[in-house]
């Protein structure tokens, strides 16, 4: 059964251009950008544009609680009424501007792992930030390459630094294929450590 397979992992930047479709089968818009909560750990929603080649930005946005599912091929919403005027949705301008891209990832023992180039999300009927794609620093032994770093369930974000437990470096992946398992293993290790 397809319903028992794990929810797909997706890079946040790949969501741009993905169609927004109602459960009634109507195309509403395309994803323009992802809006992160100002804390950086969650997704607040999406800004939108009209579908098509010469697409214009829309004045409405899609708040996260209006999303029914995020999949490989579409972002599903119950109907068009879940869209909100962007002004109401993102009153804090910084929510749109202050995302985690380009932030530095530091371990809790002070190692610089690199800068965030993308965010890895786990889709399905919720959308969780499960990792960062970083341009690796010397500390990871693969300087300049892009690697995936798993995140704990909760994450501390302060200013320009994202703090992750140092054990995250044991669960670094090079591609999305094995990354879901790496996230699970990393989180299991953290839970063992705290109990």
């Amino acid at each position, binding site marked *: 059964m*397809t*319903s028992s397979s794990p*929810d*797909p992992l997706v890079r946040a930047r790949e969501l741009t251009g993905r*169609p927004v*479709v*109602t*459960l*009634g*089968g*109507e*195309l509403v818009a395309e994803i323009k950008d992802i809006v992160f909560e100002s804390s950086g750990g969650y997704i607040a929603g999406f800004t939108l544009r009209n579908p098509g080649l010469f697409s214009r930005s829309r004045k409405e946005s899609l708040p996260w609680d209006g999303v*029914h*599912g*995020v*999949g*490989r*091929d*579409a*972002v*599903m919403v119950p109907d068009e009424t879940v869209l909100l005027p962007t002004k109401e949705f993102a009153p804090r301008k910084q929510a749109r501007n202050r995302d985690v891209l380009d932030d530095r990832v530091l371990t809790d023992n002070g190692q610089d792992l690199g800068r965030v180039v993308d965010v890895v999300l786990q*889709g*399905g*009927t919720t959308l969780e930030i499960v990792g960062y794609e970083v341009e690796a620093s010397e500390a990871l032994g693969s300087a300049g390459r892009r690697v995936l770093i798993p995140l704990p369930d909760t994450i501390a974000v302060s200013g320009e630094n994202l703090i992750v437990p140092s054990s995250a470096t044991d669960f670094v992946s090079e591609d999305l294929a094995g990354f879901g398992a790496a996230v699970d293993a990393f989180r299991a290790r953290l839970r063992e450590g705290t109990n």
Partner: protein
Amino acid sequence: MLFSQARKHDVVSTATATRVARVEGFVVRPGPARVALLRLGKVSGAGTLLAWDDVQGFGPDAVTVATDAALRPARDELEQRAEDNELDILGKLVLTERGTALGAVTDVDFDPETGAVTMLITKAETIAGDRLIGLGRYAVVVLS
């Protein structure tokens, strides 16, 4: 019976024993998935829709109606869109409620007795009709 087998069926009036139209397409509605209307061609009058409830019999060779008065034009916006062929299920992309595409609908299996849609068929798989939850201009939406 498959849509591909049922298309082009003549619609025959049992009152006059004459052909009054030909089946061009099927308008499927969800909840529960069923054929709600037939879209007709080669019609003499203005009405190009036939409600499933007005179908007397859907046989292997022809569709019968009591009289050609059963053929009618669209009555609301949704029927108008159906008449304009916006909502034809064939060729439409199937999306799960989680946003995964399952391919385009190539054929549909339905029960000619009741009009119930039993199966949506795509190149890669068959999808039980009771998973259908939405049908719009862009896509067919099914439960995951």
